[in-house]
């Protein structure tokens, strides 16, 4: 028991960089993203009995994070919290190097997408999942995933300009 538990722990630790990236693509800043990672990982531990041995641990935890993120949004909406203006995010106060500027710009563009499109874009374009994998994580049919992804991409191009 103890051994199996600590082994799962190490596997989750090795997933943390990817979980942080996924969370960052859903959140406004790294701090919120890390809170989301923590919530997802804690939830995974609480529901470890629901994880089927042999199943893909990464997909399972990504799915948990998706649910945790949606729950957060609902809770926030229910409380009537107003989203912070963009300037209070992590827009760098000093002249940013190119890399920081692009992360900020892309993050702000993602923030404007409807949540279902944001999830599809995050899993396929940022995480590099196949359509099939992403559809499984989101628990939606492939056709739904591709249409959300296509709409999300159109909106991002409109927001960010032609990337070519």
């Amino acid at each position: 028991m103890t051994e199996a538990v600590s082994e799962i722990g190490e596997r989750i630790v090795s997933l943390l960089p990817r979980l942080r990236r996924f969370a960052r693509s859903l959140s406004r800043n790294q701090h919120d993203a890390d809170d989301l990672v923590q919530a997802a990982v804690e939830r995974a531990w609480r529901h470890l009995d629901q994880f089927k041995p042999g199943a893909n641990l990464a997909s399972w935890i990504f799915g948990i994070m998706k649910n945790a993120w949606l729950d957060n949004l609902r809770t926030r909406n229910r409380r009537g919290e107003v989203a912070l203006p963009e300037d209070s995010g992590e827009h760098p106060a000093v002249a940013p190097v190119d890399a920081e500027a692009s992360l900020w710009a892309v993050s702000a563009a993602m923030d404007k997408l409807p949540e279902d499109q944001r999830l599809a874009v995050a899993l396929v374009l940022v995480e590099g999942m196949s359509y099939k994998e992403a559809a499984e994580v989101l628990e939606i049919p492939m056709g739904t995933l591709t249409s959300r992804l296509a709409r999300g991409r159109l909106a991002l191009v409109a927001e960010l300009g032609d990337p070519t």
Partner: protein
Amino acid sequence: MNYDDETLMAYADGELDPAQRAVIEAAIAQDPELARRVAQQRALRTKMAGAFGKVLDQPVPERLENAARGGAKTESGRGNVLQFPARSARAPSPPWRAREWIAMAASLLLGVLLSWRLLTPDPGVFEAGTGGMLARGELARALDRQLASEQRGEEPVLIGLTFKAHEGNYCRSFLLRSAQTAGLACRVGAEWQVAATDSSVTSQGGMQQASSALPPSILRIIESRMQGTVLDAEAEKIAQQDAWDANR
């Protein structure tokens, strides 16, 4: 021939089968506009992956590593695990002062608010005693009498693991089904002192070994306190006949 965005997108993402791919490639070769649209899809992908990819190179905060190993709940103060102060079995400590009461009430409230679920173990089963939280009512009865090996699985309180703690006294894990709360209680004198509870237990229905339903938080506390191994059915029975007095 015209192609919709979804088809071009699937092509750019490498999601088409070889036959479909060949058709699109032939079309692109003929039509610069199609080629431009595909290039745009690919460029967007590169841009998104590149921007967020930087997160992979950042150091991972320690709090996340702790959480990943299953250990962050008590440290973050966000979960609903309550670990009650461990008091010595030999030296009864003075009654809680107001400040401690307020602190405990506040942490209870925090747990409820943050976890958005009611942390409501039947009030009749816990009582604040001089040495901490004590088991009462059906919880105390189950801890006193119930043997894990003889449970039918329908009891309101399920007993999980019984073991000897480092201090030499017996401890037993329990599951309060109605409150979906798991916990650990240790024998102190003639009382069961509740060492920890966790109300994040998921309902699974059916007959479930109480031990396998224990949340990781409680398992960790058990691990840290346990001396030797878990009592088997026979040892559990003998301990019960000795009224949980480890010195007999």
